[in-house]
């Protein structure tokens, strides 16, 4: 005599019962609220205010060995720029120790004979010294100074009514983000990191907790199946993740003033696929770990660190060596960061969204399959 196939009504009832149970636990456990609401908002504020590529004032030390009208006008053009906070001095040694200490971002030296050399037709050097301990900032400072110098030359030429000696000029326009505010793309990117962490951590911890407290064993002793168990865990945390996402999006729009040019339905779709991936990773971790400590450690190492470093959110994937670029394709946050930046700043650009959706979906399928294979309704 074989067992009758469990009626689908029974299965549905079991899943609903598990969802109801999980929801009650979520609502009663203050730590879930902390992880789902407080932690993401705290992280979002930190990323929003603390991480920025926008140099607010570039501190410049200006050394003029031999003041002349030319050096005077150059100094004035730097001093008048809102980008620079320039101080000038005769002796460069003070500035050098300032640069070592990180109190200034660069030194500009107009050596003695600057005007005389220029007048002779030799090209007089404007020496720029930048702090290479942060190469990115060093490059920016150099570029800004180069730009300031170009402007100064142009002004000089116009005032003197000379022919412009720089025939070709570059006119740049930054699309989607004309005011070049880095938080416009860092905030959406950080949402991906946060959601990954929260989704994976929550599921990993709650499943591990069931193993630790022995309730999983009691559940398994009833006729529940794998699908019931997985659905009973995924659905409530999916809903919770979507709520977290809504909170984070609201914060991005209304607190950080990030524009949103896509449509919310596409945002919801991308979030849904990404969350599934994150939750599945959490489930997989807890299936292998069965212990909250190991689950927490593995989630931080396998979900948070790769998302932070290899998603392209602050660090440039293109600048990494090839092996890391290849690994980054296995990091779900990579796709979501790109998708979110596009949705917020550019709009529903399907040529970006499709590949990213596909990437996440493939990873989700892999995780869920692995979880289903690894989860048995047995203990061994």
């Amino acid at each position, binding site marked *: 005599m074989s067992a009758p196939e469990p009626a689908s009504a029974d299965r549905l009832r079991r899943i609903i019962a598990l969802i109801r149970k999980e929801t009650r*636990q979520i609502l009663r456990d203050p730590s879930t609220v902390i992880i789902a609401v407080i932690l993401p908002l705290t992280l979002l504020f930190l990323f929003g205010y603390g991480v920025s590529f926008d140099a607010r004032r570039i501190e410049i030390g200006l050394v003029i060995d031999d003041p002349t009208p030319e050096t005077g006008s150059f100094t004035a053009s730097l001093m008048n720029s809102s980008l620079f906070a320039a101080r000038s001095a005769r002796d460069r040694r003070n500035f050098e120790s300032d640069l070592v200490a990180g109190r200034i971002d660069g030194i500009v030296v107009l050596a003695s004979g600057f005007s005389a050399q220029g007048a002779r037709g030799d090209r007089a050097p404007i020496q720029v010294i930048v702090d290479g301990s942060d190469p990115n900032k060093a490059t920016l400072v150099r570029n800004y100074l180069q730009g300031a110098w170009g402007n100064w030359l142009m002004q000089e030429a116009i005032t003197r009514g000379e022919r412009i000696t720089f025939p070709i000029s570059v006119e740049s326009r930054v699309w989607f983000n004309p005011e070049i505010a880095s938080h416009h793309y860092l905030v959406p990117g950080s949402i991906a990191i946060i959601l990954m962490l929260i989704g994976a951590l929550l599921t990993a911890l709650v499943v591990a907790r069931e193993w630790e407290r022995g309730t999983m064993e009691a559940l398994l002793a009833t*006729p529940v199946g794998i699908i019931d168990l997985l659905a009973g865990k995924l659905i409530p945390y999916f809903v919770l993740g979507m709520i977290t996402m809504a909170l984070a999006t609201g914060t991005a729009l209304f607190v950080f003033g990030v524009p949103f040019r896509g449509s919310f339905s596409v945002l919801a779709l991308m979030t849904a696929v990404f969350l599934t991936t994150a939750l599945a990773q959490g489930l997989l971790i807890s299936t292998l770990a069965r212990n909250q400590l190991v689950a927490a450690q593995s989630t931080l190492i396998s979900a948070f660190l790769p998302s932070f470093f290899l998603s392209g959110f602050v660090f440039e994937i293109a600048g990494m060596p090839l092996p890391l670029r290849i690994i980054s394709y296995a990091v779900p946050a990579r796709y979501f960061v790109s998708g979110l930046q596009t949705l917020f700043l550019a709009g529903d650009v399907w040529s970006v969204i499709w590949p990213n959706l596909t990437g996440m979906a493939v990873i989700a399928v892999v995780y869920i399959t692995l979880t289903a294979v690894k989860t048995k309704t047995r203990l061994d």
Partner: protein
Amino acid sequence: MSEALVQFDQIVKRFDGTPHPAVAEITTTIMSGGITGLAGPDGAGKTTLLRLILGLLKADSGALRVCGRDPVSEASAVRDLVAYMPQRFGLYEDLTVLENLTLYADLRAVIGEERRTAFERLLAFTSLAPFTSRLAGALSGGMKQKLGLACALIRTPRLLLLDEPSAGVDPVSRRELWRMVQTLTGEGLGVVWSTAYLDEAERCERVLLMNDGKLIYEGSPSGLTNRMVGRSFHVRNAGEGRRGVLASAAKMPGVIDGVIQGANVRIVMAAGATPLSAEDFKGVSHVEVTSVPPRFEDAFVSLLGSATPAVSRLAAGAVRAKLDAGPVVEAKELTRRFGSFTAADRISFSIGRGEIFGLLGPNGAGKSTTFKMLCGLLRPTSGEARVAGLDVAAQTSAARNRLGYMAQKFSLYGDLSVAQNLAFFAGVYGLTGARRQRALERVTEAFGLQRYLETNAGTLPAGFKQRLALSCAVMHEPPVLFLDEPTSGVDPLTRREFWAHINAFVQSGVTVMVTTHFLEEAEYCDRIALVYRARVIAAGTPDDLKDSVRTQALPDPTLEDAFITLVEADDKKVAA
């Protein structure tokens, strides 16, 4: 009319990384309509056996049928027919009583009218009806146990598996549970009750006795006990000398077991040995020897063979710190409040030199709180705790140097080797140079730890963990020993060995204070205090307590009877 519910045929289950199979070639049958006791020490394979029945584990070899089905390939059908209450009851502590019941009803497809009647029946059966909206985590141990049972019984199963349902539950609740389960068997249900308590196993219709994964006995408990008739004796009137009686009995030929039971010493003889008589103790003490009916534990010890009561190799009368006359441990009006909750309320007692004093009481009654205040782990709200003449709260460090402490569960460093654990505790107690060397050699030799010195403490066999824990607690030769539930979850043989050492310490003048919820262990004490609702409700020798509840209806009360009667009397007094 009983039928076979579970048939094991040569079942073997082993786990990776363990040398011996957890279940080794077990062949047996479990019938309906009765309680089958599954007894044996921790790690004997009891839980593994239950999990195999449910298909939660897959046997490596052998054939297993549960209600005529294969528990692995037909898992969902088997789990429909079999109910299971795991250790710690499998409850969601953050759900209410009713929510827990509803969850399991949904999972087992008990709906509509069927659910209504099931809930009504179960809530009445477990007397949980007034508490349906209370969180499971806020229930007492006994109530959790009942709720666990109710959840398992939502759909009346054909077979009910209970995994150590009475562990950590006080005697009153244990008795109630027993009565409830017996009612069920009357309805034709089969029950498997796994337990480490041999007195529980003794009450079952049938018992499966496991050790090291092997089935060493199956049949009725009396079948085993009957083999022991005429081999069990009580040595009476030994009074203060009963530890000496026990120690000398241990050396007599033919004696296979001896334990202290209140004022008496219980001795069990090997099969065919000359019966014990008062003559045997002529040189030791003036005693009286009577034959007593055997009990299951006697049989268990006898069956496990190598059960010569261990004689501690600790030299009795080792040099001890000289103590002033007067009590060694003193609790004076000890009170501890947590917010508005009083965990210990004006508890007073004193313990003299060389005395074993037991703190007995249900979980949460305040015995742990009292214990912790006495060894300086908790600061009293008011009152005073003195150890070896020192005020624990004021002279904490000095007082701690004079006490040895053994925590409830194995509490040494599992990743450190035995030698490293010993070296650590020697260091912590400030033993250096030759003293340290001597102390290390002494405990290694006395507790037979030589061959395990390089083994990680976490992987030691249970008995050796116990020895190591005791070694670490006594290395600095403290005049006072504090033992917190020292033998919970330990099999009778290990327990005997442990107490042999404790007795040796006591004979050399060490004072011992022990907490226990294990009544067998309470019998080993010279005096006990029963702690209930934060107060000492009774104190005296074990026999005093038994005498205090002796009635015509109960002419020969056990300590368990005394416990239950005293607790219930106090309940009535409070209610009045």
